[in-house]
């Protein structure tokens, strides 16, 4: 009899334990959040975790690293099967897609109450990539944009001690470089057609909206886009830029071998250029913000980077927000930069000597003050990667006239946007 009583008492212990935990505080109970990050970010963010655990011993972060190349498919498949993690990283051009999917949480309230994250501490152009129809859906984690990497020695031989600041000067410098080399196999600038960014950047600089009527039709045949497009295609036509893309399997090596002297690209290239430009070449390269055609230097560039977003269905909103706040602290942002060279999204972090004294970084800092988001619609990726690149390649190869190419581009894009127009009209009917 007695033994039985003791046994039942024994059984009660875990229950009592649970009750006692519950009664103290909800936050105190241990929470595990799942966090998906891409590629190197996923690996290196784990090194920041000990610091996070020191402050929040009750939150455990389970980081899963997914490869960049398959990230979007993985995330969307995870959404379809209801397996999205609590918190994940998104390329900021993907945010509109996940908003269209209704997969991520509106963060307006969170930012309003948070004393650690405020809109003013971020670069304006970058922040706005996360704002869809007036609501915030992501917090910038790290940023990137496109600037020009150039060979100082070759440009100064062409008479440019400073990087050209206007479209006209850029063309002029390119012609002089080509003339100085006097070699079919040496080019001034590399504008590969499998990188849509340059084509969009120059169009944005020329005040093209890229799309029109609430982003529901293409605006490619418009004067603004056409002028920018013609300007870039002309580099290929004059032999200032190589036409094919498979000649350049290693951009850095080609840059070191004078195959081309200017290249528009992003911050992830800096460590690579440092590795390839050694010995005599070590101080012969530089970075410069984008030239412009309006007289205001620098001209605009892309607002790139990655954002942190929260799964709409998460049960751990609070813990996820804590982790976002932690990753947004200036010291943590600097630490992350030293780990994998991801540029901090928080402006204050740029005052750190590590970045302020880096001669290659200053061009980026200047550029981030003038960056523009690409059209914030779910279809953008398809338009940019498949259509813009496809028609840029056709234009470079000169199979059709530019006029015809841009009309075809518009037609294709209008077809892609048909669904969007239908959804918009459906929404209007409701309102």
């Amino acid at each position, binding site marked *: 009899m007695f033994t039985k009583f003791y046994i039942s008492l024994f059984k009660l212990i875990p229950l009592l334990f649970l009750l006692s935990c519950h009664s103290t505080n909800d936050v105190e109970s241990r929470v595990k959040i799942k966090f998906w990050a891409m590629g190197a970010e996923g690996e290196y963010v784990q090194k920041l975790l000990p610091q996070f655990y020191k402050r929040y011993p009750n939150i455990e972060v389970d980081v899963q690293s997914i490869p960049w190349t398959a990230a979007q498919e993985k995330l*969307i498949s995870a959404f379809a099967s209801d397996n999205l993690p609590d918190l994940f990283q998104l390329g900021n051009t993907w945010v509109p897609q996940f908003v269209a999917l209704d997969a991520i949480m509106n963060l307006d309230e969170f930012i309003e109450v948070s004393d650690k994250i405020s809109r003013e501490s971020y670069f304006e152009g970058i922040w706005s990539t996360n704002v869809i129809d007036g609501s915030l859906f992501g917090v910038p984690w790290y940023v990137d944009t496109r600037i020009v990497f150039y060979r100082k020695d070759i440009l100064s031989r062409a008479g440019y001690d400073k990087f050209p600041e206007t479209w006209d000067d850029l063309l002029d410098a390119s012609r002089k470089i080509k003339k100085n080399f006097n070699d079919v196999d040496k080019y001034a600038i590399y504008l590969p057609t499998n990188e849509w960014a340059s084509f969009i950047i120059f169009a944005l600089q020329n005040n093209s909206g890229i799309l029109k009527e609430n982003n529901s039709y293409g605006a490619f045949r418009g004067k603004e886009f056409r002028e920018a497009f013609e300007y870039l295609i002309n580099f290929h036509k004059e032999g200032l830029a190589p036409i094919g893309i498979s000649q350049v399997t290693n951009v850095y090596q080609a840059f070191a071998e004078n195959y081309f002297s200017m290249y528009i690209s992003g911050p992830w290239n800096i460590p690579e250029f440092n590795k390839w430009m050694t010995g005599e070449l070590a101080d012969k390269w530089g970075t410069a913000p984008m030239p412009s055609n309006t007289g205001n230097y620098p001209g605009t560039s892309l607002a790139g980077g990655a954002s942190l977003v929260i799964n709409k269905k998460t049960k751990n909103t609070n813990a996820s927000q804590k982790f976002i706040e932690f990753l947004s602290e200036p010291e943590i942002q600097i630490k992350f930069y030293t780990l994998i060279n991801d540029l901090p999204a928080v402006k204050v972090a740029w005052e750190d000597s590590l970045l302020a004294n880096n001669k290659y970084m200053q061009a980026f800092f200047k550029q981030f003050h003038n960056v523009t988001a690409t059209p914030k619609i779910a*279809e953008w990726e*398809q338009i940019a990667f498949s259509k813009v690149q496809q028609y840029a390649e056709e234009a470079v190869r000169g199979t059709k006239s530019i006029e015809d190419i841009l009309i075809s581009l518009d037609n294709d894009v209008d077809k892609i946007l048909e669904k969007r127009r239908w959804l918009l009209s459906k929404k209007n009917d409701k309102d």
Partner: protein
Amino acid sequence: MNFSQKNKLTAAYFFLAPALSAIFVFFFIPVIAAFFISFTDFDIYSLSNYSNARFVGLKNYISLIEDPLFWQALKNTFFYVIIAGPLSIIVSLLAALLLNSKLVRFKSIFRLTYFLPVVTTLIAVSIIWRFIYHPKFGILNYLLDLFGINSIDWLGDPNLALPAIILMSVWKNFGYNMIIFIAGLQNIPEYLYEAAELEGASYWQQLKSITIPMLAPTTLFISIITMIGFFQLFAEPYVMTQGGPINSTLSVVLYMYNEGFRWWNMGYSAAIAFVLFIIIFVATLIQFKVQKVNEAIE
């Protein structure tokens, strides 16, 4: 049907049930679902809210007919199947004949070497071949250079990229068919050759009148399997060229993948899948018919 027979049948169904239900759940249901989806404009907006999908009837199929990119993909795929298919079968047959010859020594080593590309991951092979084809540092251009031929940008030239991929996939795949051909060759009774030799038939006559006719069932099997496999060309262009330059290596499956899993136009992508299914089905029927006609003639 008596009782015991009926019982036997029930037992058979009972044992088949797990496999059949797995096939039903994981094969037939998705196929039927895909068939329905191909009549809708199911896309990224519909993933979260099914009411955003519209029934569009045959619109996907009609726009497929009007889509120049689809025709390009179809043209590339047919070119690939028509050139690479027979080429790969001929190479496999030649390799099998060589390895089956009594004069060859170290047969197993050769068999292993020829089979090695088949078991190597396609991704790894594609990356290596990208180096081989490299216009500046590639070994292929180095060899051409020795003969005084200027280096060629294999994967960058719209006219050469697909032939370059054909060359690679023939090399990669011939080992598999070769093994099947060897098995077929070993099944040909020796006495046929002995009789032919007594009659004074030359090697070529033996090849023409004994080996090739006796291999007919094997060849049919191989040609169908190869054709079906080659119609599904995907990984080679996906890794080596991403369908470029100017879509000269875009295959139907690559196009389907891009539409479905990169841009999430599931309806359109499903329509491509069914068109491809019909093409493969018809091509297989034709092959069966041709074989039957051949047999009748003989």
